[in-house]
């Protein structure tokens, strides 16, 4: 079995206008930089992007907001990207804000064959508007539906040609759930290794979820907020 693909551009050959892409990453940490660049080059439009944030103006999913390739964002947080905030406030961009735990669980459910679930999060707030609510044990819960994508772009540290993936530190974030919840899942890795080189006990995403894998040509891994101590 060999899921290797020559380039990010080849990996998204079947991406079409109007499709939904799940994009891993938290801020600029653990984002699929090479695939985002490929989408910019390809020029597909009217995309729906599911991503915790939209990076910053010129890095991460923010790049695709600049090129106006995005119709709708499903995200949890906007702070840190002025263009995202402006486009959302002016209505030029459709925005669906989800609580972070709800977004994570919607994706997990989407990959696990669970159509919907009840959560206490957001009860009594705008995120519960129009949704079913129900009481369990004296507490109110909101019915949230599973979420899936046409494509998932996953960034991992290491992967093998079977698609087994290992993430590094907090670059894991939403990547593992997204890897389970799309029709076509592409992993970009910093290091592509042979099957057997990853300790089977250390695999975070089993290869069954992954359709295509490549070693990224370039990882900027930009740091959004460089906080340090002196001693």
């Amino acid at each position, binding site marked *: 079995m060999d899921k290797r693909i020559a380039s990010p551009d080849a990996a998204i050959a079947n991406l079409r206008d109007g499709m939904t892409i799940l994009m891993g990453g938290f*801020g600029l940490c653990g984002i699929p930089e090479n695939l985002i660049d490929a989408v910019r080059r390809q020029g597909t439009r009217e995309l729906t992007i599911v991503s915790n944030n939209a990076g910053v103006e010129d890095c991460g999913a923010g790049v695709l907001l600049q090129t106006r390739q995005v119709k709708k964002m499903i995200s949890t947080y*906007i702070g840190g990207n002025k263009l995202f905030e402006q486009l959302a406030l002016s209505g030029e961009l459709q925005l669906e804000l989800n609580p972070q735990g709800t977004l994570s669980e919607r994706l997990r459910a989407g990959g696990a064959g669970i159509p919907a679930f009840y959560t206490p*999060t957001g*009860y009594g707030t705008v995120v519960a508007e129009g949704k079913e609510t129900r009481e369990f044990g004296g507490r109110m819960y909101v019915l949230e539906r599973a979420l899936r994508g046409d494509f998932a772009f996953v960034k991992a540290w290491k992967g093998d040609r079977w698609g087994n993936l290992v993430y590094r530190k907090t670059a894991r974030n939403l990547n593992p759930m997204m890897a389970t919840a799309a029709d076509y899942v592409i992993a970009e890795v910093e290091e592509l290794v042979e099957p057997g080189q990853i300790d089977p006990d250390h695999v975070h995403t089993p290869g069954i979820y992954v359709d295509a894998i490549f070693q990224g040509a370039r990882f900027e891994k930009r740091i959004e907020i460089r906080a*340090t101590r002196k001693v």
Partner: protein
Amino acid sequence: MPLTDDQKRERIARRIAQELRDGYYVNLGIGVPTLVANFIPKGMDVVMQSENGMLGVGPYPLESEVDADLVNAGKETVSEIPGTCYFSSADSFAMIRGGHVDLTVLGGLQVDEKGNLANWSIPGKMLKGMGGAMDLVAGAKRVVIAMEHATRENKPKILKKCSLPLTGVGVVDHIVTELAFIEVTPQGLLLREIAPEATLEQVLGLTEPKLLLPPSGPAVMSV
């Protein structure tokens, strides 16, 4: 001399740190809440949870240790400590929603006397998103709000009813400001402590709802 903004922030963080207990798992929000980590009493083991997928958040790294793959929920670079572990966002929010986090400290735009919190949007003006805040207030065992007592224009932020979009309903346990330590009770807001230089009249004047007082009056905040 009125307190500077930095002094207010430090005072709020110091007071909240007094609520920590050995063995607590704690999630700190962005801004003033993050400062609480600077005032953990010596010798006390408190494990910081960061909702992007980390337990055991260490201090900011040395310049030579900065790692793009290692950030906190405020997207700042951080370091790991012996015992740190990493996990996915789904696992992180299972911990949070499942009631495993002992205490969370978050910022606030408004809190009202029912313990409702608004902290993620000002319609038409400011839109940040709720991030993990709605899950944290729904799931953490205790929710402490760290905020300035009033707005820049001296308008109350502690209200009878929040006017901004809510983060959670009936979720706040304590409000800590530079002037007061307030507990949300079923009967209303209880003014447990006031700052050393503050007067009762001043605190009441900057708070919209009626404040309940302990039988022997509010204690002096130890800061």
